[in-house]
């Protein structure tokens, strides 16, 4: 009884993905069977290599990985630098600038689309990794998260380090960053998910050109060109989520931490 609600919830949440996996393992003819098969008695892996090669998923996954790694590293670096400045360095207009950083959270990315596409075009960055990644190399949310973590470091530690001759940079790299590791891991996982699952921006800036197109856009194309081969599109979907499922299982704790972003007491 106590498990009834839990199991119902699990079924609702998992059924769509489960059926996707099942359907990807069925031959096209079995898809239209009524009642639909809920278990692949004779799993057929044939669609996976087809999706992989016809959908160019290998290239797209590589592109997504490159884009994601650039964005994650970039956000970590800029957030650590700015977060450190806001937490430990005294400079005029510090509070004002911090508010400016937070103000970026009020402007949805969609609202900046018109001019950003023009900027990318005038920089010649269409169909390049620069175009995909550079607009996302900084994050107000990430800076906030890192600053909060740095503020928890006892002031005495900074003073003691100063007496030992540590300048700001050395203190940042040797003391502050190692102490803020949990927050940085959380930010990393969060940026990873956000970057990997981006849809609007890759759609806009990788219009042509297989060489930078990401896997999300690859899925759209797979859906568009393979209408008669639902099974192939579904195999592609499974391939595209698989890396993230591994990530979720491995980093569940960090993920929870980042998604709640300190907003929850």
């Amino acid at each position, binding site marked *: 009884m*106590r*498990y009834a*609600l*839990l199991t119902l*919830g699990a079924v609702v*949440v998992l059924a*769509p*993905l489960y*059926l*996707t996996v099942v359907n990807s393992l069925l031959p096209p003819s079995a898809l*239209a069977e*009524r*009642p*639909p098969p809920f278990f692949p008695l004779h799993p057929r892996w044939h669609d996976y290599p087809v999706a992989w090669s016809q959908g160019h998923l290998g290239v797209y996954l590589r592109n997504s990985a490159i884009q994601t790694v650039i964005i994650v590293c970039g956000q970590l*670096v*800029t957030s650590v*630098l*700015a977060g*450190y*400045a806001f937490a430990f*360095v*005294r*400079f005029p207009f510090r509070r004002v600038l911090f508010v400016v*950083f937070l103000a*970026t959270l*009020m402007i*949805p990315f*969609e*609202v*900046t*689309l*018109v*001019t*950003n596409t023009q*900027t990318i075009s005038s920089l010649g960055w269409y169909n390049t990794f620069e175009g995909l990644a550079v*607009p996302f*190399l*900084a994050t107000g949310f990430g*800076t906030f998260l890192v600053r909060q973590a740095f503020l928890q470091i006892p002031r005495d530690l900074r003073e003691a380090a100063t007496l030992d001759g540590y300048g*700001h940079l050395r203190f940042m790299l040797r003391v502050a960053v190692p102490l803020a590791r949990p927050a940085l891991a959380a930010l990393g996982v969060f940026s990873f*998910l956000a970057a990997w*699952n981006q*849809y*609007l921006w890759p759609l806009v800036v990788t219009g042509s050109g297989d060489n930078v197109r990401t896997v*999300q856009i690859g*899925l759209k194309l797979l*859906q568009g060109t393979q209408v008669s081969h*639902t099974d192939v*599109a579904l195999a*592609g979907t499974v391939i595209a*989520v698989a890396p*993230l499922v591994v990530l*979720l299982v491995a980093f*569940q704790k960090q*993920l*929870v931490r980042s*998604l*709640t972003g300190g907003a*929850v*007491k």
Partner: protein
Amino acid sequence: MLPARSRRVRAVREAALGYLLVLPALAVFGVFVFYPFAQNFRLALYETPPYPGLPSRYVGLHQVGQVLTSSSFLQSLGATLLFVVIVVPAGLLGGLLLAVAAHRRLRGMTVYRLVFSSTVVSSVAVSALVFGTLMDPVVGLLPWLGLNPSPPILQNTTWALPAIAVMAVWQFLGLAFVVMSAGLSAVPEEVLEAARVDGASERTVFWRVTVPLLSPTIFFGLVVATIYAFGTFGQVDILIGYSNAAFEHVNLLVYDILNTIQVTKTPGQAAVLSIALFVLTLGVTLVQLRFIERRVHYGS
């Protein structure tokens, strides 16, 4: 004590370091957030000429009025608001239900938690392909279960929007669950126990103690869900597209902006739509802050 001059030099050097550290992020924000945001207000005043190559023409607020009163904008606005009104409560309530169900010490709870949070990894494209198949008139599960309107769900002027909303809610459930569970685990067990000892029923405990204590989390979730719902459009792009019969009924604002940039190629109009989206998102968030946050219980 250091001499005054040396202290001043140090302060200047420290300030320089501070600016140097914030500069990289600030540069990105300047070019890709603030500049394009401000640029909307200028572009909105210029009309794109009917023939490419001609310079754009200053028309003042004329274009703003024209876009905001056009039937396509009003339809898009209506669809967007309806979408938000479906997705936000459904997503939050679903997340809360799952979180309450999983907030117990039972065997196997780790697995349930993993399952409930699993949709955080699903993307727009993944949810579109998964549900597109489930709703397919020929091979789909929903038609088999009897939900088979004509025209098919995703070409149906009535059902297309709720169908896209279902996908968005499913995709949001994982995040809502994670946020709500974190909030629940911060509710002190002693308080709940005290209420039970005083003879309160489980239902009273939930509505009178747990929910008020959880209200900051629910409020945070509300703001996040609203921003998420306003930004959704990808499933429409993948499954419906602008040549579909049901298109006008699912033309969510972001999709309208995208098509105005890429298909109609009128940046001025797209800028007006962008400002409208911004004002709408900000407005709804402010209304939530003003009227709902007052009821949030932040503890002592």
